[in-house]
């Protein structure tokens, strides 16, 4: 005889799940913060945890330590943290909106627009610093708008968006490749370096812009994300339940694209973070809805760890994006195999 779940049982089960969600999210935040501190500890001078924490909280009294932490290393660590968070959240949103765990701004052509605009600036004009960031942002928005418009046919289906995204990406990459071949060796090298993605080159403006964007965007995503749970039931059910499906989608997609745009502006197209942060967060959280904050912390942790590995663990220091790619590809392939086994994702 089946046991009948009474309302108090359901309530207790829900409370347990919600508690798990909170605990996991806080654990992810703790890991991200720990990696942040580790990034500040290492360099040509090794600092201790106490010294770093002292500097961060303003309680330390060693000005040379303060100098190292705040002026030399903070920029890289903060960039890694913020870019990772932005990419992680953006990836999760893309995956939910396109209903495909393999959807990611990297594949779907969003970053290819940023790449084309930046490479054009590096090779043709040439520009640097602030100009590059602006161009990256504009490029990301342009390609996203293009894909959205092309994929729209009484609404968006995930597959069509992804495939058209791949087509648009090929188009922009053909042009990008042409420019890199045409450039002189110096500019070509600069372009190919930028294309790999690195957290070492962000200026103050880009960082503050990212802070502002995250400060506005994360609450917006959380608010818009409530009707999103209804969206997970499918468009028909969601419309019947009163969620304003298309506007909600557009809003969340806009947040996701803005996050990617500013992240790429600060650090270049770091691959794979947007793709894997979401699934990792969701796997840890279990059947709790949402996961935006967790995805952000996981993304930050990934980029911080990758940057540490790229800067200190490789034979020569490499840009961050190289490590995320080498780590991300096997994970993605594993994900494809596992997802395929369960019959989803295709």
């Amino acid at each position, binding site marked *: 005889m089946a046991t009948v779940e009474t309302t108090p049982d359901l309530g207790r089960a829900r409370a347990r799940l919600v508690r798990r969600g909170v605990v996991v999210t806080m654990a992810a935040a703790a890991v991200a913060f720990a990696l942040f501190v580790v990034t500040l500890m290492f360099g040509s001078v090794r600092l201790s945890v106490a010294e770093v924490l002292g500097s961060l909280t303003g309680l330390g009294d060693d000005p040379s330590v303060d100098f190292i932490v705040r002026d030399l290393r903070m920029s890289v660590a903060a960039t890694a943290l913020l870019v990772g968070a932005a990419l992680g959240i953006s990836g999760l949103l893309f995956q939910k909106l396109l209903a495909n765990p*393999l959807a990611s701004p*990297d*594949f779907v052509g969003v970053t290819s627009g940023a790449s084309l605009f930046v490479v054009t600036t590096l090779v043709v004009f040439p520009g640097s610093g602030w100009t590059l960031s602006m161009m990256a942002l504009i490029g990301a928005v342009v390609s996203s708008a293009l894909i959205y418009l*092309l*994929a729209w*046919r009484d609404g968006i*289906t995930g*597959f*069509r968006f*992804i*495939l*058209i995204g*791949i*087509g*648009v990406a*090929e*188009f922009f*990459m*053909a*042009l990008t*490749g*042409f420019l*890199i*071949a045409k450039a002189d*060796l110096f500019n*070509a*090298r600069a372009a*190919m*370096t930028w*294309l*790999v993605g690195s957290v070492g080159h962000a200026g103050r403006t880009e960082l503050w812009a990212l802070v502002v964007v995250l400060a506005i965007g994360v609450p917006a995503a959380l608010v818009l994300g409530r009707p999103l749970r209804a969206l997970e039931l499918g468009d028909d059910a969601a419309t019947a339940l009163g969620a304003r499906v298309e506007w909600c989608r557009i809003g969340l997609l806009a947040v996701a694209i803005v996050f990617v745009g500013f992240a790429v502006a600060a650090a270049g197209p770091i*691959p*794979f973070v947007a793709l894997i942060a979401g699934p990792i967060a969701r796997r840890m959280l279990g059947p709790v809805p949402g996961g935006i904050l967790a995805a952000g912390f996981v993304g930050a942790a990934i980029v911080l760890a990758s940057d540490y590995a790229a800067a200190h663990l490789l034979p*020569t220091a*490499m*840009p961050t*994006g*190289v490590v*995320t*790619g*080498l780590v*991300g*590809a*096997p994970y*993605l*392939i594993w994900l*494809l*195999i596992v*997802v*395929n*086994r*369960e*019959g989803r*994702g*295709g």
Partner: protein
Amino acid sequence: MLAVATDRRVAGIAGLLALLLVAVFFSITQGSREISIVTIWQALTDLDPDSTSQTVVREMRVPRTLIGVTAGMALGLGGTLLQATTRNPLADPGIMGVNAGAAAAIVAVIMLAGVQSLPVYIWFGFLGAGLALVAVYSIASFGREGATPVKLALAGAAVSAGLYSFTSTVVLSNLDALQELRFWQVGSLAGRYYPVFWQTMPFLLVGSVVALFAGRALNGLALGDDVAATLGQNVARTRLLVFGTVAVLCGAAVSACGPIVFLGLAVPHLARALVGTDYRWVLAYSALLAPILFLVADVIGRLAARPGEVQVGVILGILGAPVFIGLVRFSKLAQW
């Protein structure tokens, strides 16, 4: 009725052959340099070794055209084979990781062995391309439904992304690799002379012949694995043979010319639109359509930016993407 249809198809083949000859003619006579017809005729029949123009024609335009024809044919046939055997209208050798595999192998050999000449590293590109294709298909085949269109596209993207990441690592630490790669990866017929032609020609020709005779087997596969098996076809062995042929054809073509996008994708669709779904005919039409498009794109590239040229890969990328997007958007293809 059938006789009429066949007559039309044969007439179509004749028409395409004529178009191919026209394309070859333009490829030899047009270019970033103005060369008169008389000079060209002399170059081919009565060589004057001191004339630069004649050298350009004989040593550069002719091999380039020959490679364009053989590699173009290989890509068209490879694309058709791929689409037929995976029953996936969006299969394209590039999306399947062939280009990324070739790139990774080439930079690896440049870094490890200091090799810098195309005729040498071409062999490694070939190997890399083949291995990548095998990997993509294997990954996408896991699971109940086997290799569906979206799974293949995503597996291809995954393998490509991983390989490009490796390629980036090498390229950022080795300036020679960077210099070679940035030119190779655009996809071009420029700088491909007789050595490249003689190296790739055996593979491209043998592969093309095998492909052209695969029509019957492909028709069987198109009915679905179960029906084909019932009709006595060894599905697994056919697939293996077909994928092997695709690896040879596309591997050789890509390692010679660099990554050429969309040719393998769009040509089979065009062929099917012209001649129906019988793969014996589709293969024949693809074998002729692809080199025509390839050479035309190459000529456009040579004329568009005189005295320089725009690489054929760029022209095809710019023109091919709208075709691909159109296919996805306006046909029933994107409804899985």
